[in-house]
């Protein structure tokens, strides 16, 4: 049931927007009352948070030997493109955030968590006490790429970011923020 609620909510939010979708409608889509929905998700915000959380990513363990910026950049891009699997929801979240909803704060914390757990292990041996700064910088820049594209083309931004040229450019920008090859 929980999965059915999430699937229905994702469709309705993407089609109509967050504010315009009611919990009752989500319930109706699954053949239940709004009370049933609230049993699984205390608020509408909680549904959005659950949708955005997505499947956990495995932390990447670095291969032995010197730091490999290319492999690390690829991991960062993997996290980034994972966000892009739900472009409509991210747009809704951005709208919510600009309308003053604090759900965005929770989500940003989640994004930091993803970077930390997935990319952190690769950076820690070489960045050490600077690891967190590098991770924040990566988060800021990748957010810039995502939101920049979203603002320019809210409907098609995920496509635009998947274009080879855009992907290559983002990879280069990520590489700049990483220590150079052979850094110790």
């Amino acid at each position, binding site marked *: 049931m929980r999965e059915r609620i999430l699937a229905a909510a994702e469709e309705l939010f993407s089609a109509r927007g967050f504010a315009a979708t009611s919990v009752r409608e989500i319930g109706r889509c699954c053949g239940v009352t709004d009370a049933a929905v609230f049993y699984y998700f205390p608020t509408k915000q909680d549904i959005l948070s659950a949708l955005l959380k997505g499947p956990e990513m495995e932390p990447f363990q670095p291969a032995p030997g010197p730091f490999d910026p290319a492999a690390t950049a690829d991991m960062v891009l993997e996290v980034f493109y994972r966000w892009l699997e739900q472009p409509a929801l991210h*747009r809704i979240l*951005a*709208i919510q*955030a*600009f*309308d*003053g909803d*604090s759900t*965005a*704060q929770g989500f*940003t914390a989640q994004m930091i968590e993803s970077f930390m757990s997935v990319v952190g292990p690769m950076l820690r041996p070489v960045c050490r006490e600077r690891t967190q*700064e*590098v991770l*924040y*910088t990566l*988060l*800021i*820049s*990748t*957010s*810039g*790429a995502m*939101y*920049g594209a*979203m*603002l*320019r083309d*809210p*409907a098609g931004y995920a496509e635009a970011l998947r274009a080879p040229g855009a992907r290559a*450019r983002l990879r*280069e*920008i990520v590489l*700049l*923020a990483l220590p*150079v090859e*052979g*850094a*110790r």
Partner: protein
Amino acid sequence: MSHRTDAGDGRRAKILTAALDAFAERGYARATVRDIAARCGLTDAALYYYFPSKRALFETLVAGVHEYPGGSAAEEGPTRHMSQEALEGLTDLVLDWFVADERILRLLRRLSLEGDRLARDVRAQRRSTWRGFLRAQFDSRFREEDAVLLTDALVTFLSGLTILVQTIHGPNARSVAVDPAYRERVHRYVSIAVPFERFLPGMVLGA
């Protein structure tokens, strides 16, 4: 700047300020002309005398985005090397401009997310102005392809920064963005995002 004391000008300015407040507080869609008029002690009819619609208020507001204050830095000329101080100075310049226009930017961004074309175009214009300014700083000091990459890195970083500060801090975005402790962290992050030292002629990397 005009110093006319025409009551009409004063009232227009008051209305525009009230509109910006209302849009910032309630969002464009939920703000009403009635609310804006009430903030100025006017009736709706009186407000409509100055602005035919809520949309007209928005269009007048966006026409008033500040001129980019980048002039003085640009005059420093191409012989100066890029340095950490220069990079931090550029970052501060862009952040100061962001702070000056923060509420209008918020409105522009919010409306762009809904596909509003005027908002998108004003934003695009504004962005290309400061991007062009930053590009000129790098062009004069690096090979062209490196200048393009460094500019892209800086622009992407600064966009992410200003959007995150708005989405995370909401109405406190401006006070956060002027806080010296925040600026200090931003300076550290920007030195990571834009490692220009790697591209200076004669640099030897490694070790």
